[in-house]
């Protein structure tokens, strides 16, 4: 099954509540996927700093002293905020690539979950309510975010097998369904220079979109290509630095419900996930059409 939730805020006054609203949506979707949960939150991207979210199986050892070592390696001050098994490194935007390379060198066991101006990703195995409380998602502010509760089908129940998958700067993707041509597509994408961390079908979809956008397509065009090039069942919800998109395959048997008000656009695998949102009683609620790309962007809304 798997459960997907997503929330794209139009009303700035709701931004402090983003984490709390998304957490409530995610926990409601527990019985669609109790194996693992993950959430991507897009915060304020207006400053000159960028963020790298890292994860370690041994956080005490790996995160100790990293702030000083990393600062020395990139030649500028960095800050690290540790949250359970994850930590968010904040550093100057122009040091992002240097910083990522330095992290991999200093702590080869650490996994980079996401990087970019706005995105932070937290994901772990376990029940959604435990995952959101572990990372204090409730108290997070942001402009938009997506979440996933996983019932594993195509690959192992591990932290890395949890969604969202991020394969490009400020990009992430969550998936309900299963892809049937992911092995072949993975081979083709590897040939184009993409790298993979798991055997997961969803990571292939995320990498496909990243590769298509690297060729100059915008996200909308990349999602339209996905309808033709990805074989299998899927409802995808994707996030970019300022945008939020939804697409389903042409058969569209994986469930999806959307709601829009003046304050937000919301996505849920089921209507139940949306019932605690403010003003949902008067929202426009609809089921996204198969093979149709839906996309919202803060730059266009503003």
């Amino acid at each position, binding site marked *: 099954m798997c459960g997907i939730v997503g929330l794209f805020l139009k009303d700035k006054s709701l931004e402090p509540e983003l984490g709390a609203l998304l957490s409530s949506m995610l926990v409601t979707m527990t019985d669609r996927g109790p194996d693992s949960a993950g959430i991507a939150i897009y915060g304020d991207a207006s400053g000159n700093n960028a963020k790298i979210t890292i994860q370690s199986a041994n956080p005490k050892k790996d995160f100790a002293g990293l702030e000083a070592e990393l600062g020395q390696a990139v030649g500028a001050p960095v800050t690290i905020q540790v949250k359970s098994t994850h930590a968010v490194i904040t550093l100057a935007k122009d040091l992002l690539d240097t910083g990522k390379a330095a992290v991999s060198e200093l702590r080869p066991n650490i996994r980079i979950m996401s990087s970019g101006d706005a995105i932070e990703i937290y994901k772990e195995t376990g029940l959604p309510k435990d995952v959101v409380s572990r990372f204090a998602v409730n108290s997070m502010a942001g402009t938009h975010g997506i979440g996933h509760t996983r019932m594993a089908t195509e690959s192992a129940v591990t932290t890395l097998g949890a969604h969202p998958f991020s394969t490009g700067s400020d990009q992430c993707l969550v998936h309900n369904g299963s892809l049937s041509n992911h092995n072949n597509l993975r081979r083709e994408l590897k040939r184009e220079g993409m790298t993979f961390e798991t055997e997961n079908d969803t990571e292939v979809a995320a990498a496909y979109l990243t590769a298509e956008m690297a060729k100059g397509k915008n996200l909308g065009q990349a999602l339209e290509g996905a309808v033709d090039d990805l074989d299998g069942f899927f409802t995808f919800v994707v996030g970019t630095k300022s945008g939020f998109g939804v697409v389903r395959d042409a058969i*569209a048997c994986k469930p999806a419900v959307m709601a829009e008000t003046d304050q937000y656009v919301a996505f849920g695998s*089921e*209507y*139940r996930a949306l019932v605690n949102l403010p003003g949902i009683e008067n929202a426009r609620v609809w*089921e996204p059409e*198969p093979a149709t790309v839906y996309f919202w962007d803060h730059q266009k809304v503003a």
Partner: protein
Amino acid sequence: MPVIDLATTPLRELNSALHNIQNGSNDLSFEVVNPRGSHSVAVGIDAPVTVDVKGSVGYYCAGMNDGGTVTVHGSAGPGVAENMMSGTVVIEGDASQYAGATGRGGLLVIKGNAASRCGISMKGIDIVVHGNIGHMSAFMGQSGHLVVLGDAGDALGDSLYEAKLFVRGSVKSLGADCIEKELRPEHLTKLAELLEKAGVSEVRPEEFKRYGSARKLYNFNIDNADAY
């Protein structure tokens, strides 16, 4: 009239109350409040009860209904009125995928739009949709009537047996073995009856087109192998 608040009462209590109605009972009208997208609301009714659900429901609402009248004052998730035997189910809003699937009898009225696979494998149920229906609707439909006041999506009536389909708007495409058929007087009479039962006025039966099976595929014939 019993009012069941699903914010405080477990769903199982509602369904047990509906299943335990004895012959001669006076409490035959139920109101359900705060459904908040719950699954399996009012499933398995087998008595002539009336249930008014004030809000939207999730999966499988009013499934297997036999003789009840269930009205959802909101929208319904996937599989509403699946395998209905008899009675009436009315959705004031929209319905998600496979509404009325495998229904054997009774009437399902959707006042908004229905999504894909509406009436899939229908076996005697009558379905009236005031709005549009999605792709693959009435797939393998065996008997009963599907009446659509709006438009139909792709592959309407694919692999259809004897279900009768009436669409007033456009049909994006017809599925394998589904063809447009003549609208004869008996069909106009039946349509008028269904429209009246579904509370539709100011729409004339003559405005619809009828679709049905070409009957080429439902007995295997090697000459038709390419069409499968």
